[in-house]
């Protein structure tokens, strides 16, 4: 070649400019990457911040001082019957609700009875049952306010109500305390007494059933596929269907449960039993896949050694492989269970949407779960339920994150490099 190009002039202005542009592009690209990571992080932070900001107030409640003078307004109840099983009806029948409402009107001025929760008298009832001597004198009770007053006290309000609340606050009659009914009660129409205990217990029952079915089935299936299954069309079919099931939308499992469990078999609708069965079918493929990976990572030398000293194939697996793979299997199972615990859509279809005012008593009684309670409360028009919803979300997130943290801890602690 005759026309030799001159060597690149690295120090020349054109080349230097080009390099500067390339380096600038490099920095921009890098910043773009960092930006993407930060954006995701920011979104997570914003989500958590909003939920915690809204929800923390749901754990507390505003109470108001109401003196009730049983001397002036006697509650005619036979003190000896207060220990009986029907004490609740006896007290209600004697008109305690009216007495408390009257006392509130007297203490808080006109419309005072509307300022306390419509269930506030039940607190008084509990106190009387614990100490019947209260009936003989006057006592100052700290009663839960109505939902509107509670919000006004927490957020401030304008108008007549705001003025009233401000006045009460100045007099030191309002107090804020941890809202125990939120942890002890089931759902209710009044935000002052609605709680998550029913949903929490439903969740625990449902997950327990799902675990009892999905864990053994999943682990045994994984053992079979990884250790014994011959390579043929049948095992291919099993493998393909497990992988597909792991990717099927969860709502399809709801349709399956509705058609098979409820309409064909007639298992108790809307119960923890059907919910658990549904979630078990959903989590089983996840457990199988995680278990297979854990089993695969146990080195063949261990199997060979066990076979060499005369163990049968079943003994090899149950005495050696399974115990070594168990930490990995448990990690996968916990993650799968956490996912099932947060699931709502399939349970919506099997009727767990209904309002459940009682704590579920058994696996077949109507139950609701925590995510479903969140969904139901999110639809409530009453303003008091907004902070309840966020508070329930906080509880759910704490449970889920601690399950995930446990899984990560187990993985780090028991992870073995062979």
């Amino acid at each position, binding site marked *: 070649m005759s026309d030799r190009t001159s060597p690149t002039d690295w120090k020349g202005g054109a080349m230097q400019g080009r390099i500067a542009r390339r380096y600038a592009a490099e920095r921009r*690209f890098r910043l773009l990457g960092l930006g993407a990571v930060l954006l995701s992080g920011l979104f997570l932070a914003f989500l958590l911040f909003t939920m915690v900001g809204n929800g923390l107030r749901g754990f507390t409640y505003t109470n108001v001082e109401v003196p009730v003078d049983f001397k002036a307004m006697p509650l005619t109840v036979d003190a000896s019957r207060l220990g009986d099983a029907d004490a609740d009806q006896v007290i209600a029948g004697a008109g305690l609700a009216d007495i408390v409402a009257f006392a509130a009107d007297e203490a808080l001025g006109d419309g005072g009875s509307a300022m306390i929760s419509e269930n506030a008298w039940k607190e008084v009832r509990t106190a009387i049952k614990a100490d019947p001597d209260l009936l003989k004198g006057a006592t100052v009770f700290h009663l839960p306010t109505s939902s509107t007053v509670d919000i006004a006290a927490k957020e401030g309000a304008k108008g007549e109500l705001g003025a009233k609340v401000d006045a009460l606050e100045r007099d030191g009659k309002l107090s804020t305390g941890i809202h125990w009914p939120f942890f002890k009660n089931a759902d209710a129409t009044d935000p002052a007494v609605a709680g998550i205990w029913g949903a929490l217990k439903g969740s625990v029952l449902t997950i327990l059933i799902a675990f009892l079915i999905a864990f053994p089935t999943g682990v045994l*299936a994984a053992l079979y596929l990884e250790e014994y299954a011959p390579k043929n069309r049948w095992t291919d079919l099993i493998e393909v269907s497990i992988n597909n099931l792991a990717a099927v939308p969860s709502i399809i499992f709801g349709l399956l449960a509705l058609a098979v469990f409820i309409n064909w078999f007639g298992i108790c609708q809307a119960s923890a039993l059907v919910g658990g069965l549904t979630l078990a079918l959903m989590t089983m493929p996840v457990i199988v896949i995680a278990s297979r990976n854990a089993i695969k990572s146990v080195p063949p030398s261990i199997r060979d050694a066990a076979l060499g000293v005369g163990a049968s194939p079943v003994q090899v697996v149950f005495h050696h492989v399974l115990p070594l793979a168990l930490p990995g299997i448990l990690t996968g199972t916990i993650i799968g269970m956490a996912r099932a615990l*947060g699931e709502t859509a399939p349970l919506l279809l099997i009727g767990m949407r209904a309002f459940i005012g009682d704590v579920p008593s058994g696996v077949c009684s109507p139950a609701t779960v925590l995510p479903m309670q969140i969904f139901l409360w*999110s639809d409530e028009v009453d303003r008091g339920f907004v902070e309840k919803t966020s508070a329930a979300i906080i509880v759910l997130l704490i449970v889920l994150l601690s399950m995930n943290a446990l899984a990560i801890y187990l993985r780090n602690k028991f992870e073995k490099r062979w």
Partner: protein
Amino acid sequence: MTFNAAALLLLIAGLALIGWLAGRARSSMLAGRAGAKLHSRPQYHGWYVALWLFAPAALFLAVWSAVSPGLVTNTVLASEAAKELPAFGFERGAILSDARNVATGRQAAVRIPAAAPLVKPYADASHTYAWVGIAAMLALALAGGLYAFTRIKPDFRARTRVEKIVMLLLLVASLVAILTTFGIVLSLLFESIRFFRLVSPAELLFGTNWAPTSGAPVKDTFGGIPLFWGTVLIGAIIAMIVAIPIGMMSAVYLTQYANPRVRRWVKPCLEILAGVPTVVYGYFAALTVAPALREFAVMIGIPNASTESALAAGIVMGVMIIPFVSSMADDSINAVPQAMRDGSLALGATPNETIRQVLIPAALPGVMGGILLAVSRAIGETMIVVMAAGLSANMTANPFASVTTVTAQIVKLLTGDQEFDSAKTLAAFALGLVLFVVTLLLNIVALRIVKKYREAYE
């Protein structure tokens, strides 16, 4: 007296424990007395007895608890008191279940007066069937246990037998997956066929008007196109516009630029996004994102902005999918051989030129597969769209308008109060079938791509 499956299961488990102890004791006694060598160790004889005692009885228990409610109902229906029941439909079912609840003690008193005369026949019938079931179960357990017990001899190959049963158990466990798949396909197909007898499949797939009403099917109200469009708009367009760039860039940054310590902390943080339950995202979308977007839309002068918008649901769904896209991209980028990267850097390319012109093209098939999986997950997502996207079937490209999706409609069709045989209810299963088929195809294609590409480098 009712049929309590859990308690009975505990009972036969207890019997099996006794069988285990007895089998073990018998075999070691035989070995000691005859001085012969046992073929299997005593506990295998114990297991043999326990399995023979437990398995037939447990199987019977499972079958009986599925079958006996039907038998009880049939007996009640044949009784004198059932003559006055309404012939068919929802009311009849309600009366029967009311009577059943009282008879089994789940409810203190009848809610429907017509159910009152049925309570006693119900209680009697379930009493009878419960006793028949318990007797048969115990007989089976004892027969199985005795049979196994008499077979214990020093040279009996108990271990081989027990291991055969264990293998059978493993096989059955892995068949559950196939069974579930068949259950899904059959139940969806079965109900869809009933639906397609009322409404033609062509109408569901290509019709443009979605307005199902209860009662008799009205022509041209089951057109699925608006739902499919809404699903695509939210799941495949808006969510992906959010998830793909952020997910890809996060993966690139974390694999190529971030130092390992940062990566170790940031990656699990991103994964939290995937672990947040969808109902929380839905609430967040409906409560915080949607109103903010509406205000924004009103500010820039969009007239019919709604608080339930495709945009709110799509954005939040996109955020949910970010960790999914980023971990798929992460895997594909990591699978590109280091030599290719080193070669590009050695030629003088800057890292970003290497990434854009070497790594990403090489990882593209894997990334595409990951994106298809993400789309399949997005179109199957339910709670976010139920809570934030609205339920009105609109065929609009305006992201600020309310649209509806396949999953949201399935929920809507199945959560009202209606009898189970109406076209409206059955339509949910037909929609479920469409959703199942589409996500299945997406998954198969995606896995093909990912697999094929992996083989190219390894």
